[in-house]
């Protein structure tokens, strides 16, 4: 609960960065499901292999919104390769940590980014992200 959220989590929850949609997105990824109470949808715009814009919409708790916000901040302006290196741990660390029961939110954020990149790669090259599958099934029930 709030008592165990860091100031950074509360900041990103209260004033989330990059909320919204990109109508002409180059890649869209959605992960999570209503059963577990978290859904993240990420839109990316890519130019010359660089993520020039990124937006998200999230249904979820404070940590879910904060990790979405932080994850999008961390990869904005980065190359696809750099963005793919983003780990859930890095998102959690950038938020000064998450309560253990909320770590799955950071996994979901990492997944949402990878899912959007996967979609972008499929659309632009016809081949999706190699060696990657969403955690959706294990995250779900």
């Amino acid at each position, binding site marked *: 609960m709030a008592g165990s959220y860091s100031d950074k989590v509360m900041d990103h929850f209260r004033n989330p960065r990059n909320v919204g949609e990109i109508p002409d997105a180059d890649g869209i990824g959605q992960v999570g499901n209503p059963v577990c109470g978290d859904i993240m949808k990420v839109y990316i715009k890519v130019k010359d292999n660089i993520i020039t814009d990124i937006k998200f919409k999230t249904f979820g708790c404070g940590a*879910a919104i904060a990790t979405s916000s932080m994850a999008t901040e961390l990869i904005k302006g980065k190359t696809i390769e750099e963005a793919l290196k983003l780990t859930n741990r890095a998102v959690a660390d950038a938020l000064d940590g998450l309560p253990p029961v909320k770590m799955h939110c950071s996994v979901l954020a990492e997944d949402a980014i990878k899912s959007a990149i996967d979609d972008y790669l499929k659309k632009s090259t016809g081949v999706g992200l190699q060696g990657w599958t969403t955690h959706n099934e294990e995250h779900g029930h």
Partner: protein
Amino acid sequence: MKRIYLDYAATTPVHPDVAAAMQPYFSEKFGNPSSLHSFGQEARRAVEKAREDVAALIGALPEEIIFTSGGTEANNFALNGVAYANEKKGNKIITTAIEHHAILEPCHFLKTRGFEITCLPVDKFGLIDPELVWHSITEKTILVSVMHANNEIGTVEPIAEIGARVKRQGAGKISFHTDAVQTVGMLPIDVNKLGVDLLSMSAHKLYGPKGVGALYVRKGTRLNPFLRGGGQERNRRASTENVPGIVGFGQACVMAAQRLASDDNRIKLLRDRLLAGIMKNIPDVVLNGHPNLRLDKNLNISVKYVEGEALLLNLDFEGIAVSTGSACSSGTLDPSHVLLAIGLPHELAHGSIRFTLGHWTTAEEIDRVIAVFPKIVEKLRQMSPLKK
């Protein structure tokens, strides 16, 4: 910013008159009630006076009240105490899907010890069908435990009807327990009219202190001791009495009896005003629990497309304290078992918010919530991928 507390079902402030009644029993009248000297005897008198006051609130005899450390202990005591005192007669316990964890967890434990637990479903309002209780009773049944009112959705169960049927069918063989933590001091209670043999209560839900409660045990009910030791509480719950806490509990019961006698519906009117205000200003909100058969203080709603913890935190930013049945409050990924038991889909269960009003709730506070809440919902809905 003036804070607004709307989580009275979680806990209540200690009423100043209760705190004042407790005060002398910390440092001045500090005796051990088991001591024979005057220090002990003044503490003993205070404990026994409190026992009378607690008993009077629920129509019981003073000797039928066993003080405990709270509602959870009372529930554990009732279940374990009856189960092990009657294990030669049978091993079947009947309860419901919407009980508090302080009932469900001891039941899970008893299951691992060879007891058979029947967990009855509820309807979409959270109501138990007394027929279902009736039909679930077998030769092996030793205990039926059904909560008086649900802590999350506020639905008040037909305890008297169930009690009458259990008595008729059980013929003295079956003990009937109710967890009345949410109703003691809120609804008029008479253990004889309810037909219960055991009833759990907690002081901090009715403006008393935390860490004290009681289990009512009807005379003649077979019950194993909960704590063994120095013989306190008629050998059923050893341990030096929490004298200040018990005194506070007694005072809280005296004051609750006065409130109940005054037949004041102020809290219900405020709750209805809150519900009407929310429904008028926010689309896609559903009421959880029964429209009428619910505690006056309780309002539980699900807000479509948004998640409960996010609502709670945003209300907290505004100084408004509420509770949620979303997964994120529970430390698991599953939302409230109560909301799932009344058939809410997961996304609605995750979007639940509980407001519980109390003695110090004002119309100004309710109006402030009505004004603030729509903005919070709108902000989160704009962020939600579920909202089209």
